[in-house]
């Protein structure tokens, strides 16, 4: 997209297209560029193609305390609590995930747990391997991004000086010191 815009700017500056033509061309391009990109991606082999994050499994010393933090900050309901875990879906039962049209893609949810990740093999299951990778933060897209409102709300939640990460993001740490990024929808893989 950026190289296309750059070419049009050069044409405009060289007098090959008018100001009106520049505006019209960029308006149409901006409105269609990423829809076309999405359609192209959807054409790939679908057998193992990921549709969405189903859930994030978050393990910590006190799952109730962490779940309360995520409920308070993100307005998430707590569903199906057991002695060791609870689920926090991004919406209500029957709702579709944002931007998803398929009927077999459920709402993303967090599963917040307390468990021993180093437990030995049991019940026929092999022991968990020790990962050599780390998910060091998760970024959440929130509705209705407004930097000033987000900053003010973070302050109310006890984060007076959240780390700014570009025009569409702040970082805070949760109750376990885990890095949580709060982003607007303008923060994408292509920009932001």
């Amino acid at each position: 997209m950026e190289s296309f815009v750059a070419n049009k700017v050069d044409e405009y500056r060289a007098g090959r297209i008018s100001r009106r033509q520049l505006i019209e061309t960029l308006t149409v391009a901006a409105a269609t560029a990423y829809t076309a990109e999405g359609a192209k991606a959807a054409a790939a082999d679908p057998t193992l193609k990921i549709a969405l994050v189903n859930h994030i499994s978050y393990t910590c010393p006190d799952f109730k305390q962490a779940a309360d933090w995520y409920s308070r900050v993100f307005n998430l309901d707590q569903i199906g609590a057991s002695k060791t875990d609870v689920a926090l879906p991004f919406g209500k039962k029957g709702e579709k995930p944002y931007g998803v049209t398929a009927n077999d893609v459920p709402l993303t949810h967090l599963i917040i747990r307390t468990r021993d990740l180093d437990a030995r093999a049991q019940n026929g299951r092999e022991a968990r391997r020790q990962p050599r990778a780390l998910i060091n933060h998760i970024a959440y897209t929130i509705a209705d991004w407004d930097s000033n409102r987000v900053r003010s709300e973070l302050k109310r939640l006890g984060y007076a000086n959240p780390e700014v990460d570009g025009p569409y993001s702040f970082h805070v740490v949760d109750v376990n010191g885990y890095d949580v990024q709060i982003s607007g929808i303008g923060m994408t893989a292509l920009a932001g």
Partner: protein
Amino acid sequence: MENFIAGLVSQLDNGVIDRRQFCEAVSVAAVVYAAGADAANAAPAQGFKPIAINHISYACGDYRKARDFYSSVFGMTPVPQADNGREARLMFGPPPGQGGSFLIPRNGNTTPRAKAVVDHICYTISNWDEAKIRTALKEKGLGDPTGRPGSLHVYDPFDYDVQIANAVEETAFRR
């Protein structure tokens, strides 16, 4: 959108922004436009309303291995201009700016600093076909997955637990 771009052209003409700033602003505007208007009216009175996972930051010893694994096995789409030799961006799900997500494999420290850890991510696969999925996993060199029908676990090249599932076996409301 047209008024917004016309305003940017005026700023470009008047030297308020340079060529690079102009190009970036139009690109970002395109992404935000693609998000549609409905996302703009849903904020709760207090706190925030998450509508999607924006991105997952994945630190490992060699981001290229992770990049190649997640793109070749699970169909995530690399963004060529975002690959800087230390990290990459892989898109999946809805289009960018419309609820889409991305994974950022990056070279980095893998020692947890927090008291919590994200021990696995589960991804939904639409139009789940158990036999085809198991065959495809084998063809990709991932062998027999653990788990149960409709909800399978494999390991990525850094022994990170990756779960794939359908909507029947893995939904918050099934609990």
